[in-house]
């Protein structure tokens, strides 16, 4: 087999997360390309959770498969949720302690359904909590991996807790392994790979790595799902790199702290999700008005208000585009893969300093929390461009008492000095100001300053502002963020059936790459804009820029579930 999808589900607190971690560690080391997504609900203990892992011996993957080959169910919800999503000849293992086989009516007929005593085997080793290790043993056996690598990872993981715990877990693993071996159960093995070294990590983790590599040395945050991991990971590692991370009392403070640190010259950021974005709106406006660099990650989640905090949505686009009062320059970058999430941090910090304005990373819950195999960090992609900074030497030559921090220039970008630089002192105020930064209400200055601020970003590009794949003569599929994987596979399926489909994934959402998109739209017969929100926010932005409204179709999803390639295929068929 080239590909395989394994799902394990149960109640929160049943160790689903550990299964995912151990499994992916081993498979990643063996060189497989992985994609993993964890479904979870917003309660601490109890409530269903599952981990869906797609393993590929070949190409990189960016989305879960629509069908599972191997399902492990610790709870009934796992069966209920996945019964319609099983691949041909799949294997289903369930624990009869918590799952009722009487409800198996709709399970596919070709599936191999096995009652497996997870809990009991774990208890035999001393504690039912280890049923997740039993499950790993079974997966190892079913997929015919060698147990060695698994045991090493398990040992590693529990070594801190003492030899006794390690042994118990190994025993549980072995019991699971023996169980399937004894029963003679196995699935078709995966084609082995001999691929190069890889990283396997989530979007949140990738953004943390990217931030550190980009020279970010200050982060202030406030916990919020699903952005908290960014704060937590940065707090853990930042001291090693000489930076500072602060958990503030709220988002009003965290964003203002970041602005302050940035004023002082440090690359500074904050990370949040929906409600935090709303609270930060005023400060975003300040950053734009005083032309102080600022990077904000928004890991979008289900809105509005408290909404669906643990579910997927891409519904903060209008808030990022126009949520602050008045008008400011801003840049919005949308990573669509884990790798992009990592490198986009470098781009974001460079643009923030080059253009002296706020930069949003428009991430989303799936991008933030799903994990992908990705290339090893390439530090050469993180060359720091600190923008128009003035050197101490030049300042000494000028020897001006008040530095023209907001000077009108040809490219609308003013030279910038940093506290501590002699002859660089200046005033930064959110009130409209002249070249020295001091307030003025003069209409002529006002007009010039607004134009300076608003038009400076016109030259922004992140290289590939729109990621274009395929030749979209028949169908052009447009999207942004983590829907990339589903759209990509939909395109492939269209192409497989002879339809000329292509995708245009927006990587730069603002300033909007209108011209390029207009050309793409004009060349396609049908255009579908795919997004996880109610109103078709991206489609609406496109309509502002592209005349051909009639051609543009919205495919939206706002129930917290993810797009599958087949959703797009079905929609397109219905259109015709």
């Amino acid at each position, binding site marked *: 087999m080239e590909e395989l999808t394994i799902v394990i589900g149960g109640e929160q607190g049943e160790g689903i997360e550990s299964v995912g971690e151990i499994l992916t560690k081993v498979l*990643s*080391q063996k060189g497989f390309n992985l994609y993993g997504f964890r479904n979870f609900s917003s309660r601490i203990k109890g409530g269903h959770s599952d981990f869906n892992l797609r393993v590929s011996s070949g190409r990189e993957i960016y989305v879960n498969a629509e069908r599972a080959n191997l399902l492990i169910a610790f709870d009934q919800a796992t069966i209920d949720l996945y019964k319609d999503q099983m691949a041909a000849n799949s294997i289903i293992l369930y624990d009869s302690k918590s799952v009722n086989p009487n409800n198996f009516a709709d399970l596919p007929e070709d599936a191999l359904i096995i009652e497996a005593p997870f809990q009991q085997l774990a208890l035999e080793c001393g504690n039912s909590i280890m049923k997740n290790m039993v499950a790993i043993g079974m997966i190892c056996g079913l997929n015919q991996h060698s147990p060695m690598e698994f045991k090493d990872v398990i040992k590693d993981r529990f070594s801190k807790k003492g030899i006794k715990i390690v042994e118990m877990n190994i025993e549980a693993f072995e019991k699971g392994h023996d169980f399937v071996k004894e029963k003679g159960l196995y699935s078709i093995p995966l084609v082995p790979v001999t691929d190069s*070294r890889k*990283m*396997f*990590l989530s979007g949140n*983790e990738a953004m943390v*790595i990217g931030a*550190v*590599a980009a*020279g970010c*040395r*200050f982060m202030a945050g406030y916990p919020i799902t699903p952005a908290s991991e960014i704060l937590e990971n940065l707090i853990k*590692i*930042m*001291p*090693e*790199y*000489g*930076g*500072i991370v*602060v958990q503030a*009392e709220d988002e*009003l*403070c965290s964003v*203002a*702290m*970041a*602005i*302050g*640190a*940035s*004023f*002082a*010259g*440090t690359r*500074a950021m904050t990370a949040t999700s929906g409600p935090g974005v709303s609270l930060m709106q*005023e*400060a975003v406006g300040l950053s734009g008005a005083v032309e102080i660099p600022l990077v904000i990650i928004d890991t979008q989640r289900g809105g509005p208000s408290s909404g669906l905090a643990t579910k997927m949505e891409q519904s903060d686009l209008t808030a990022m585009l126009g949520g602050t009062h008045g008008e400011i320059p801003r840049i919005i970058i949308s990573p669509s893969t884990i790798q992009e999430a990592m490198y986009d941090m470098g781009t974001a910090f460079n643009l923030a300093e080059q253009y002296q304005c706020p930069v949003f990373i428009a991430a989303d819950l799936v991008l933030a929390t799903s994990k992908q195999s990705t290339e*090893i*960090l390439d530090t050469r992609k*993180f*060359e*720091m461009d600190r923008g128009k900074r003035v050197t101490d030497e030049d300042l000494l030559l000028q020897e001006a008492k*008040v530095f023209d921090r907001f000077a009108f220039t040809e490219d609308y970008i003013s030279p910038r000095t*940093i*506290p*501590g*630089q*002699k*002859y*660089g*002192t*200046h*005033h*930064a*105020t*959110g*009130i409209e100001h002249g070249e020295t930064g*001091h307030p003025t209400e003069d209409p002529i200055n006002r007009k010039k300053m607004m134009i300076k601020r608003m038009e400076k970003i016109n030259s922004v590009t992140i290289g590939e502002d729109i990621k274009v794949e395929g030749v979209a003569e028949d169908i052009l599929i447009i999207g942004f963020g983590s829907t990339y994987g589903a759209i990509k596979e939909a395109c492939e399926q269209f192409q497989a059936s002879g339809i000329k489909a292509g995708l245009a994934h927006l990587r730069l959402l603002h300033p909007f790459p209108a011209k390029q998109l207009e050309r793409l739209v004009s060349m396609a017969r049908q255009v579908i804009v795919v997004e996880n929100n109610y109103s078709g926010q991206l489609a609406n932005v496109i309509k502002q820029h592209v005349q051909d409204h009639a051609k543009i179709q919205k495919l939206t999803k706002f129930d917290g579930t993810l797009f599958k390639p087949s959703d797009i295929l079905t929609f397109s068929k219905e259109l015709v």
Partner: protein
Amino acid sequence: MATLKDYRMDIKPNWCPGCGDFSVLAAIQKVAVNLNIEAEDMAFISGIGCSGRISGYVNAYTMHTMHGRALATAQGVKLANPDLHVICAGGDGDGFGIGLNHFAHAARRNVDLTYIVMDNQIYGLTKGQMSPTSPQGMETKSSPGGNPEQPINPLQMALASGSSFIAQAFSGDVKQLMSLIEQGMQHKGFAFINVFSPCVTFNKVLTYEYFKKNLVNLDEKEGYDPSNRAMAFNMVEETGSMFTGLLYKQERKTLTESLPKGSGTNMLTRDTFILDDIMKEKLISRYV
């Protein structure tokens, strides 16, 4: 050698003649010179209000931020560059109304900066509404029937929040004002100085005359021990906050000193940087 000229701007403050904020401006500039701080080493962050305009009248690295968020911003500045002398200033509405939360948290965090509030017991810039320190019963544009609310007590608030330096001054006594600002700037940690700074246009109750008549000078009070929290709390009760002087002072670790080892040693405020291979391997080690 820093001189007064370095700190002065060619801009005429847009305050009303007689406004208490003039004294605060002058005092800060003079203290900076006394302490021989170069203008480029001072970061002066202010909030929004008449008082908030103060940072624009000082030649230094100055920032006029958002209503209520000056302290949040100022903490970021200081953490990013501990070599800067950071002053933060604003009004009573700015600091004790919309910005009170940051006040309390900055105080307990003990970031090393000096926070000066020009407390005129009124909203000046918006033309005379009651503020959180307006006395109960005071008539203002937004309390035509008299302020129905008991005012906030900034000094006890500061004490409860763990501020490690708390003082109160009066614009009418520039000498003491300067002395307290100087002490505050020399204090290692969060220093809070509440300044009675009369609004001659909108506050006809809490005037220069009123303060002159009613203020007690704590610095001259025998037996008062500013290291005693309980004593400080009681002093505020007893005087009804009508005092000037150093109320409380404590030596304790600043936030920067309490952070994990290594923190703040490479803030890259001015350098560029590229991750070396060893650090890179460390960074990615959890994910390979």
